[in-house]
């Protein structure tokens, strides 16, 4: 639970990050329902503590890598709200220039070199970035966020071997939300032991309550410490649950995925409500204003995104190749 050793300010910062993600994704859900957002959107509502807890353990120069469900990673690492909304609306001012939509987000200035929706695809890329940091002797860590389904892809296992062998400063964050699209984990494997995924390569594995931002933070901080100390990779299984469906705004109950019971249990374990309860135990005031402030921020970003222009069709062939490499 929420440890007493954390300052109110620290807890407030996590609450704020999680609430920003939650409210932004709720806004996106509405955009999807209205047909305003047309690209496939995978919402992580309910999983906010993982992104917020991990990114709290990182510096701006560390990189994070994600997949199809990465709005939270992007925002927690410091990506701009307006860039996210504009991207989802296919606008030129989007964080990927309107070329990616929800599933392809970038914010190089805060260490997001790209999230992409091929399952497990960015896992070796994160390890490769870590390889670069190690080679250059930089004090940086790469974080790979992936789902429980991604552990079914062979490339992930190859990458764990390489990460262990080269003692790479990479952290594997498995967001185990129990489902890979419509399939429960028990339909995809025989054991509920994802924290053991790296054991074959002697990668330390931790299992934490992914709805407890402090637990996630502490595990990530320990892993980052090992990475920075040259002790190599770690894996953290964060057990959590996505409230919404695999894709889009609905709750999956419409498509025959039987998870109504689970869902209500997990909603009771709302990661934001838990921090909020801790804050109210400390008699922190003004939470409503804080939430209203976040909502104004979101509203402002959304309106700016709406006003932004679409990419002109005439430039559809641009950026296939680059003339000169981007400074990095």
């Amino acid at each position, binding site marked *: 639970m929420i440890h007493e050793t954390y300052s109110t300010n620290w807890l407030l910062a996590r609450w704020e990050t999680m609430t920003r993600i939650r409210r932004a994704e709720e806004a996106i859900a509405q955009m999807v329902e209205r047909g305003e957002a*047309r*690209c*496939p959107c995978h919402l992580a509502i309910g999983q906010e503590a993982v992104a917020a807890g991990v990114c709290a353990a990182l510096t701006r120069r560390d990189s994070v890598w994600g997949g199809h469900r990465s709005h939270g990673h992007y925002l927690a690492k410091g990506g701009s709200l307006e860039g996210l909304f504009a991207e989802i609306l*296919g*606008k030129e001012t989007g964080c990927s220039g*309107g*070329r*990616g*939509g929800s*599933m*392809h987000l970038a914010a190089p200035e805060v260490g997001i070199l790209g999230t*992409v*929706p*091929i*399952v*497990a*695809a960015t896992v070796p890329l994160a390890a490769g970035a870590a390889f670069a940091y190690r080679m250059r002797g930089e004090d940086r860590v790469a974080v790979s966020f992936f789902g429980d*389904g*991604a552990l*079914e*892809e*062979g*490339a992930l296992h190859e990458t764990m071997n390489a990460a262990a062998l080269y003692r790479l400063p990479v952290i594997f964050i498995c967001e185990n939300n129990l489902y*890979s*699209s*419509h*399939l429960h984990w028990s*339909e*995809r*494997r025989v054991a509920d032991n994802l924290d053991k995924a790296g054991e074959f390569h002697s990668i330390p594995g931790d299992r934490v309550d992914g709805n407890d931002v402090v637990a996630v933070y502490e595990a990530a901080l320990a892993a980052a410490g090992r990475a920075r100390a040259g002790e190599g990779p770690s894996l953290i299984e964060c057990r959590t649950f996505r409230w919404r469906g*695999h*894709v889009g705004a609905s709750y999956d109950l419409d*498509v025959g995925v039987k998870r109504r019971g689970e869902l209500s249990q997990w909603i009771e374990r709302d990661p934001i409500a838990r921090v909020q309860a801790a804050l109210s135990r400390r008699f922190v005031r003004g939470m409503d204003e804080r939430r209203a402030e976040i909502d104004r921020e979101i509203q402002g970003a959304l309106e700016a995104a709406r006003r932004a222009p*679409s*990419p*002109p*069709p*005439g*430039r*559809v*062939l641009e950026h*296939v190749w680059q003339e000169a490499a981007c400074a990095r």
Partner: protein
Amino acid sequence: MRTLSYAQAIREAHAQLLASDARVFVIGQGLWSPWYAGSSLEDLDQEFSCARMVDTPVSESAASGLALGAALAGMRPIVFHPRMDFMLLALDPIVNQAANWSYMFAGQVSAPLVVRAVVNRGGEQGAQHSQAVHAMFMHVPGLKVVMPSTPYDAKGLLIAAIEDPNPVLYIDDRWLYGATGPVPEAMYQVPIGRAALRRKGSDVTLVGISFMAAEAVKAAETLAGEGIDAEVIDLRSLKPWDQEMVIESAQKTGRAVVADPGWRTAGASAEIAAEISAQAFRELRAPVERVTLPDAPAPTSRTEERAYYPGAADIAEAARRTLKRPASKEAAA
């Protein structure tokens, strides 16, 4: 005859194959979900059991390898890839293994594997969820490749693919799922390697692949209104492809447009254009035109998607070029 949609026709072929041949099963990612296969596999798990409709973990390579192993051991599997992009993770079992198996062992072992890949473009999905890379597989000896554009062919080619003793890549396009047409109730095969003449004409030959075959039919209607009599051939099979029908038509009309839903460079359209150019060398009265995707990944935004995907208007325009007719007003605009 009954009318079915393309998706229903695919589903019916699956159902009849599963019902009539105990060796048939389907394996791959997304079989039990409406997100992946649309209605093309709807409720087949309930009708034929999850044991024969095997929705797998996200393991494209192992799922394809498993299917191949089962095929070598006498089954008739269909391995399903809900997007062609994901199938790129399974190139070893498909290209190194399935395609070569018969040859490497001098015909002693058959690899009667059907690989089904769905092209699922547009919808602002972008570069990794839209690819139509059939040309890569058309290049590979030992594979057969089919791409139906009508409900009739969608059913008949799937049944033919299962009956074929070789690995067959069956590619369907979500943009065609709603298209309707007559489909016999009985099981039937559409021969792999034979194109379909969709319209007889004398002025120009339009060769279309998959979705672009449907667009070519529309283009021919437009052209007819302008007094241009186009012959339309739906290639249906990419490997082997019906050189005879295509070349004879090009020799007759002296003009050809190849319309391909894939990229241009080293695409399927290149092969067909090269062969028409060589084999109808004397008869051709204009360079063969190619209507393809531009050499760029798929964008996401609606504005860019519109600029990216060619259609009937582009085919008609290319046909006019072969006839040195002035460009249409919209095209010029």
